[in-house]
């Protein structure tokens, strides 16, 4: 029977201002699918959902890379190697593996980069077609994990709002260009909702799948409370129908989602 369980933190890495990556020793978590998440106990009333930044089933390791935005992440930021976390997981529906023969485009924004890295690390070897990665962030400081991508032999296109590293601007021009080159490409994206909305718009209506990993405030994390919903198709007369990020997602197909819901 599944249950909440304690996992040891074996390493703590400062990766950017107020960003930390915690390496957890857990065979169970290490077998997660990229795009899945775990629900972490913090002092507050609710657990905090964090997706996996890397997964190493051989060594039984899973990574969580998180940004401090409030009380729970501030508490997680203070954790040290040797301490335990109380987690539920792996939870949710992750990315479906890419098709071997399709070009593969990965798009990561800010703290949405980690699951994109986990996906690349897990599947780059099974894809024989070209792989393109574009990462975006506010400034150079926040372009997290870029060296990890490089260490996998990919050379991600980097973009920053202020031009402090890579191209000034966001991830869309690169995506546009690649979609022109590879109309059938498979797209996976994770990042701020406006970015995902733009990716959906740009990449819709093609043969290649578009998989988007979403965020929403959660209660139970396992499908029981209906807290974590996002507007989804079909868009009825009353408006969209609501689907659960924790179990129907976090990863949805682009065409399933309604970003401009009332």
């Amino acid at each position, binding site marked *: 029977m599944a249950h*909440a369980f304690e996992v040891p933190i074996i390493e703590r890495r400062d990766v950017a201002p107020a960003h930390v990556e915690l390496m957890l020793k857990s065979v169970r978590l290490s077998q997660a699918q990229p795009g899945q998440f775990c629900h972490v106990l913090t002092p507050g*009333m609710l657990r905090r959902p964090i997706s996996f930044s890397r997964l190493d089933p051989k060594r039984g390791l899973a990574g969580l890379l998180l940004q401090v935005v409030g009380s729970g992440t501030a508490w997680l930021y203070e954790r040290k190697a040797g301490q335990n976390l109380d987690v*539920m997981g792996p939870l949710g529906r992750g990315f479906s593996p890419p098709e071997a023969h399709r070009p593969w485009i990965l798009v990561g924004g800010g703290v949405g980069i980690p699951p994109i890295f986990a996906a690349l690390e897990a599947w780059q070897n099974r894809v024989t077609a070209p792989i393109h990665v574009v990462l975006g962030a506010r400034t150079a400081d926040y372009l997290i994990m870029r060296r990890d991508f490089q260490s996998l032999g990919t050379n991600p296109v980097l973009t920053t709002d202020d031009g402090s590293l890579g191209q000034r601007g966001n991830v869309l021009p690169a995506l546009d260009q690649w979609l022109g080159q590879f109309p059938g490409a498979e797209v996976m994206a994770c990042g701020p909702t406006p970015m995902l909305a733009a990716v959906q718009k740009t990449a819709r209506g093609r043969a290649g799948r578009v998989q988007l990993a979403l965020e929403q405030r959660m209660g139970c994390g396992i499908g*029981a*409370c209906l*807290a974590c919903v996002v507007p989804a198709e079909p868009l009825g007369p009353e408006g969209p129908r609501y689907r659960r990020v924790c179990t129907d997602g976090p990863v949805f197909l682009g065409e399933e989602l309604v970003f401009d819901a009332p």
Partner: protein
Amino acid sequence: MRLDVTLPRGLQLKNPIMAASGTFGFGPEYAAYVDINQLGGVSVKGISPDPWRGNPPPRVWETAEGLLNSIGLQNPGMEVFLAEDIPFLNTVDTAVVANIIGHTTDEYRRVAERLSKEPRIDAFEINISCPNIKEGGIQFGHDPDQAFRVTRAVREVTEKPIMVKVSPNTGEPWVIAEAAVQAGADMISAINTLVGMAMDLNARRPALGGVTGGLSGPAIKPVALRIVYELASRLSVPVIGMGGISSAEDVLEFLMAGASAVMVGTVTFQHPERMLTIIDDLPRVLETYGFSSVESAVGVALPQRREA
């Protein structure tokens, strides 16, 4: 030690700990985390005759020892519940309470009539108190005549035990409860969530998509205990207590205040297995405070019992 509880119309619980409606889905969701067979009972998520969409997200917000929710009673409707969840519920050995909701008296009657035919359902909990729906629901919970009518409508279509769940958001919940009892309610459950709100400072607007929400969790326990105490002081029927329970000691507080059994909600999100821990701890806690059974603790703090 005896933990079992006997309630009206032959409703039997192994122990006084039930999962609170809306925090435990329809049963299957938590099955991987909680051995449901160990629970006294499960009150499923509110069920309406037809599907309800619920409120726009965000639907939850954390507060100091509390949780605000504005789920808005999203549910797939009674037919989907019967088709998809009853088969699972048939595989578990615990009391199943159907929490029912409607916009009108007739909707309450419809859902009760339909579910009454389902043998797996052991009791009804009429939710006339959800603060998240602006239509029927809320006023039902604040007006004794409405409460009477809804309860009577359900009573007419079922022989199963009925508990009516009262709102803490009225001056005198016991007036509502008394009307429900006169209409044929076998039990009263209390409390539902307190209406509350939080601000999203960045967005400069209320944090919840539904603007206001229902406050639950340890923060509301004192309010819940007091309402249970007032209800138990006044009513002749059993009271099912809830609101912020997270330990066996909390359960004992509710028993002393006059609750015959309790429900546990919000804490399950934090600790899925907590209800089982509470059931394990309860005998020791009862013993520590000099009780030989659950029953012997019920109502010991009530005025009538204190004077005696």
